[in-house]
């Protein structure tokens, strides 16, 4: 298991998974699912066309993700600016990776949150096709670029 660079240890992954499942249930009860990639697509569209409406429940949820990440990091003393920042190579890999993630999520009409997790809960066929293909893609990339995260 990979430990945090500093601060308190992470939760047990099964505890974190159960907590995540409970929050996702609450969000279903509140009327929507859990999603993220759509907000980035809308934000990109807004940059080209200021008439694009950004006021969507998912936008608020994704802003919340950022606040929650800050709270979690600060309370456990894990918060830090440059942890694991690998210089220029890391920046290039992050830009290329982000680009492929966006393209992939547009082809699949969803990402890890809105398609894999939400669809997984709904026992969606497409969600499990996506998850299987995602793991294949990740393993293929790791085989080729083994030293990227070393």
């Amino acid at each position, binding site marked *: 298991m990979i430990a*945090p660079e500093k601060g308190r240890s*992470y*939760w*047990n992954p099964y505890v*974190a*998974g159960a907590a995540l*499942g409970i*929050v996702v*249930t*609450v*969000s*279903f009860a509140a009327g929507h699912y859990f999603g993220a990639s759509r907000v*980035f697509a809308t934000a990109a*569209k807004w940059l080209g066309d200021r008439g694009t409406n950004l006021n969507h429940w998912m936008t*608020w949820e*994704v*802003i*919340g*993700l*950022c*606040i*929650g*990440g*800050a*709270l*979690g*990091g600060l309370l*456990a003393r894990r*918060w830090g600016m*440059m*942890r*694991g920042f690998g210089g220029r190579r890391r920046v290039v890999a*992050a*830009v*290329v*990776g*982000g*680009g*492929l*993630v*966006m*393209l*992939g999520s547009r*082809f*699949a*009409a969803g*990402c*890890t949150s*809105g398609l894999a997790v939400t*669809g997984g809960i*709904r026992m*969606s066929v*497409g*969600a499990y096709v996506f998850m*299987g*293909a*995602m*793991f294949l*893609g*990740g393993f293929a990339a790791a085989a080729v670029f083994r030293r990227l995260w070393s």
Partner: protein
Amino acid sequence: MMPDWLTWLLIGTALGFVLENGGLANPRKLTGVFLLRDFTVPQVMPTAILTAMGGMLVLSLLGFDTGKAFTPDTMYLGQAFGGFIFGVGFYLGGYCPGTSMVALGSGRLDALPFMAGMIAAWHAWDPIRKLDVLRPFFTKAPDARDTIPELVGLDPRVLAAGLFALGGAAILWLYRRSVRGAAPA
């Protein structure tokens, strides 16, 4: 009643808090499974899915019409191809869209070039998405079933209850094993 935006801001905050505490804002942990170094993602995801399946069953017993909840369409080509390049990008970039936001909140600035890549790629994508050659990726096969219960001909609630019971027992066993094996941090 709470305004809508505040409800979703709070739900997002709770999700981000849980993800950060689970280590899912750390790109080394997120990509660890692909290097067989860290199995947080394949432990958290099935646990979350099974817990929420149980949660949905409880909601339906409480009278919520869970049948109306969002279910993705099945588009085999788009989801298989999209999933594959998504996986490649996930490994290279270290994040997925949601976790990049959590990571940014936790101070990881490498989430910013990842987001810049996503936004740039959308602008490359937008002019080509309506091309005829791409249409098969987004076409739902007429005989495609959207859910596994439809595919195998089972009542969704029966299947969810069965999966929750079996999967829940397996995860409880794995959890107890992980606690016994873990050295105090």
